[in-house]
């Protein structure tokens, strides 16, 4: 594990490795230039299809939310919640397209913070347990009009990811705070009929949902074929650079974000609501969605039937054993996170033993994701690409 000598050598020789790496592995011929280009095409087409699928189910959610606001009944509230849950399933896999400065998290124009900011500053939006008058909704004096311009400007005030828009703002306005020990939040429908500022609450919900559609549409457009957009730039860079971005995205999601931030931190902190979808108790499904995103990119099988030369195909041509290992590991990790019992927050409660089957399942998932990340880094190396992931 001595770092220094080999590191200097590798640093100097990086360019050479990039050229030679493909033919240097075993007796395999390695992927051809056509293979590499086709894998990049598959990815670009798959990203577009994934965001289209996410937008389609978000539009269905927006329709359900509009129907609920027009006619606030228990049945319509439940329908809106169901539509939110269904839409989350399509968004989760798209998080595999983060972490390389693409459209979702570009330094200047990225919308990740507007779409998926966490944790939610719920008292900035609406009343919370212990502060009945909190939030923009309950302050018509300071915020006479709730509209898209207001929410976007308040976000910009933060200079970075803020907390008043996106999936979790909508989730909070549908479910309310999760004050139970074993179920999700239970916001009464009267919040949208007879409660103080009920109309303003409905307006906030509608505006937040509309904004989410705007931001998802921007992502669909950024990846649309045949346009002057990010995809055109992505398809014009060197294949190595495109592959570096693709694999960095899944590597970073696998370890730093999913195994680390979303699972290990929640597991270790033992704070019951320190989970991503704390209002709806949808966190287990969120985690599965992320893991599916990694699987989807590696196998080259995307929504809408998009498929083609995959990253695993490339790895297989460079190093068949490594491809087999990685295929096995992504199967194990997906099975492991799917085996985590819902709701996730039951495994975070202070006092639950580490031997509890739920906690053991979370830890098994973390370890499976950690293991596969090391293999993802090795797979990149087999393709002549150095990636670093946290």
């Amino acid at each position: 594990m001595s770092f220094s000598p080999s590191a200097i050598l590798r640093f100097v020789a990086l360019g050479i490795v990039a050229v030679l790496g493909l033919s240097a592995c075993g007796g395999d011929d390695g992927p051809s230039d056509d293979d590499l280009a086709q894998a990049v095409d598959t990815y670009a087409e798959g990203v577009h299809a994934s965001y289209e699928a996410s937008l389609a189910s978000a539009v269905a959610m927006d329709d359900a939310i509009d129907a609920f606001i027009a006619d606030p009944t228990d049945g319509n509230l439940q329908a809106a919640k169901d539509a939110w849950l269904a839409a989350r399933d399509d968004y989760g896999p798209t998080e595999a397209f983060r972490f390389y400065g693409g459209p979702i998290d570009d330094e200047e124009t990225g919308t990740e913070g507007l779409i998926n900011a966490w944790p939610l500053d719920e008292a900035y939006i609406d009343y919370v347990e212990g502060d009945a008058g909190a939030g923009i909704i309950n302050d018509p004096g300071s915020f006479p009009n709730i509209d898209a311009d207001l929410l976007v400007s308040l976000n910009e005030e933060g200079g970075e990811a803020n907390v008043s828009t996106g999936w979790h703002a909508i989730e909070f306005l549908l479910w309310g705070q999760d004050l139970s020990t074993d179920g999700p939040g239970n916001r009464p429908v009267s919040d949208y009929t007879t409660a103080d500022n009920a109309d303003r609450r409905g307006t906030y919900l509608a505006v937040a949902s509309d904004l989410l559609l705007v931001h998802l549409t921007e992502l669909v457009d950024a990846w649309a074929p045949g346009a002057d957009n990010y995809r055109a730039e992505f398809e014009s860079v060197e294949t190595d650079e495109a592959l570096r971005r693709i694999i960095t995205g899944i590597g970073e999601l696998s370890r730093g974000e999913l195994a680390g931030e979303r699972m290990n931190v929640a597991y270790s902190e033992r704070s019951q609501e320190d989970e991503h979808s704390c209002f709806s108790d949808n966190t287990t499904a969120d985690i599965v969605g992320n893991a599916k995103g990694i699987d989807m990119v590696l196998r080259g099988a995307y929504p809408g039937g998009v498929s083609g030369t995959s990253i695993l195909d490339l790895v297989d041509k460079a190093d068949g054993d490594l491809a087999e290992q990685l295929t096995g590991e992504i199967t194990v990790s997906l099975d492991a996170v799917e085996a985590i019992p819902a709701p996730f927050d039951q495994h975070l409660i202070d006092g639950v033993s580490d031997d509890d089957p739920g906690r053991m399942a979370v830890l098994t998932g973390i370890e499976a994701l950690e293991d596969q990340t090391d293999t993802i880094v090795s797979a990149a190396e087999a393709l002549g690409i150095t990636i670093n992931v946290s």
Partner: protein
Amino acid sequence: MTSRAAAVLVTLALLGVACGGGGSALDANLGGATTRLDASQNSFGLPAPQLTNEERRIFERGDSFFTQNWVTAPASTDARDGLGPTFNAQSCSSCHIRDGRGSPPDPTGERARLGLLLRLSIPGADPVTGAPLPDPNYGGQLQDRSILSVPAEGRVVVTYETVTGTYGDGTTYELRAPTYTIADLAFGPLADDILVSPRLASQVIGMGLLEAIPDDDLLALADPDDEDGDGISGRPNMVWDQRLEGPAIGRFGWKANVPTVEQQVAGAFHGDIGITSVLQPQENCPSVQVDCAAAPDGGTPAELTDDRLGTVTFYNRTLSVPAMRDTDTDAVQDGAELFTEIGCASCHTTTHTTGPSDVATLADQTIHPYTDLLLHDMGPGLADGRPDFDASGSEWRTPPLWGLGLIDDVNGARFLLHDGRARTIAEAILWHGGEGESSREAFRMLSADERDALLAFLEAL
């Protein structure tokens, strides 16, 4: 300077031969074993590569509390509530974006930028600790934001005046000299004799390594009375260590006013985000700020538990240092020689060796932070006029230079010096005065090729 230029030409001609063999080969591993080969947008945010898996998981927890926003109390996510009531930022990463550097306010107002804050004090020092004394109504720092039910303290306004100068070869340059005013003061005027110091958020790489440099090594570099007559009289800032309850060498902050990473983290959580901890247990609400004092807090005895203070501290100690790039190019090697020849390395000390550490990967490392961590008088142009422990109003700590060339890659902008007034590395050099004046003059008189070489070296860090 002509002979200098000639020497460079010779060097350029010989380098093809020289760089393979003898000479002073540059060590790309600026952070020893914590170095990572990465020049991407994420290059400041990676864990040291040799952390154990157990350490990696502690790092991830610290990362989470460094990176994610804090929220208004009370909140469902009760591990992360207690923001403010007044604050500058909602998270560490709001200003240290991707563990990098902040930006001063955009004078055009086109883009919200976070990363500059104003320290406030009145003349005098705490009789026990020696710390600066806070303004009675605004405290030790201007918090320009607040939660919904509480007023913010005021707003920083920066204006710049252009100062022109000329290099020795006749090329002109422009610097921008800032003026700070505070608008919308919510609690009446500041103290008549108020002292104000602007401070920009720096990249946070390599902090654990700087902490592990033995005291004696820093003291050996000090020359407070300039006995060697080189015009440079570095001295340590002896500050108050809250854990030792006694004096210690300051290492962190623009004036080296904090002795340890832990105290830096706790101080920033408190001053910048409004998060209390065992080291900063009181909310930052001067008595006149009644709404601030009445706002709900995020938990007792502290909003940041001891365990979480520990993980965020660990995170800051164990971020990797990006490897130097282009060490084999002629320009970078020439620039490295010039860096020493014109005296930059007298304060920006190239090499240290860390001592023992409880984290294996931080111990006994040969590192190249390009700092002596000591205070130097930088002249009236950079002076803030606000003493901070032993530091006078014109003394600043030599900042580390590692990562300098990657700031733009990580943050999409690069503003240098303590308040971000410098828009380029050259501007930052040209602001050097006081003990840095002779090196600045030497830089100013270099040929264009030599300046380019020096800057190429600095960009490679």
